[in-house]
């Protein structure tokens, strides 16, 4: 499962616990004309917000194979599959560096690029593609991200970078069946980060959570090579 740079998802299973480490190498760049963004503060805010959203723990139903040896009861040896509930604990680790030009980005390293308002007209930010490595943020919203007034934009864009789709986007079931939510599920998870902006369900302050199912999708995305797509 090892890939150089970008996201690496490491799973360590011991006993009834599964440790999941989301490891990311990324660079921060200020591509604005005035270059007055404090990238250190932005990096700290990104780390804090990603930890707040993605460091979750939940129970997962797993299946383990159990061997029964033949014994005094004269029964023959056999294998059977037993369901067990394991505790999943997710941690996130960021390796950040500041660059002065986007050309200084290394290999599959992710790029967080702050852009002038006129380069992202009408938007807060975007990712180059689902599972992509380039995240663009509009300079106008950086102060509120750093101050913690906007706790959604960063986890939302990184969610796209982790291969997640909008849960309320029409036709998303064609690409990912499990990410097309029905209305009761949306109501139940109304603080989810992956609502689309047009639906009016996103709130800068409160939309900060992900579901265990989305975390499982992230792990699968990494397993099947749907992350770090360039």
């Amino acid at each position, binding site marked *: 499962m090892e890939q150089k740079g970008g996201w690496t998802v490491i799973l360590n299973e011991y006993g009834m616990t599964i440790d999941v480490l989301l490891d990311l190498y990324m660079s921060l760049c200020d591509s604005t004309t005035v270059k007055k963004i404090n990238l250190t503060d932005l990096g700290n805010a990104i780390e804090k917000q990603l930890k707040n959203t993605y460091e979750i723990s939940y129970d997962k139903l797993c299946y383990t194979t159990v061997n029964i040896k033949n014994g005094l009861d004269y029964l023959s040896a056999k294998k059977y599959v037993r369901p067990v509930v394991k505790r999943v604990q997710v941690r996130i680790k960021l390796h950040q560096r500041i660059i002065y030009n986007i050309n200084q980005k290394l290999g599959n390293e992710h790029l967080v690029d702050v852009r002038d*308002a006129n380069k992202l007209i009408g938007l807060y930010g975007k990712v180059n593609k689902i599972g992509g490595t380039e995240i663009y943020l509009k300079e*106008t919203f950086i102060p509120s991200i750093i101050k913690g007034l906007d706790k959604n934009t960063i986890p939302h864009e990184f969610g796209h970078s982790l291969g997640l789709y909008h849960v309320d*986007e029409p036709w998303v079931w064609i*690409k990912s069946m499990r990410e097309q939510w029905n209305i009761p599920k949306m109501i139940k998870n109304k603080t989810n980060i992956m609502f*689309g902006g047009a639906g009016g369900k*996103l709130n800068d302050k409160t939309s900060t959570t992900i579901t265990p199912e989305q975390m499982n999708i992230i792990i699968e995305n990494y397993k099947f090579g749907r992350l770090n797509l360039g």
Partner: protein
Amino acid sequence: MRIHTNPTLLAIAAFIVITLIYSTYEAESDGFTSIGFPLTFNKYTYGKIDPADIGLAHIGFNTGNFLLDMLVLALFILGFNLIWIKYLKKQ
């Protein structure tokens, strides 16, 4: 000039393919999906919208651009029919 079925269908198919290639599809990752050739007649996003400059983004269906695109399609059909009559029909 008489309009023939085969070159007309071919022109429509070519126009659709060019439109699909020329369009951008970024709505799923918070950018804009812009559809139309040569002018964008439909633009939308599923990302967070900045109300301050949303007017400059020209989101939505643009009837003027759509009619101009249809004019280009008509030219495609005419062009394909001309080529059909001049070069291919004789063979």
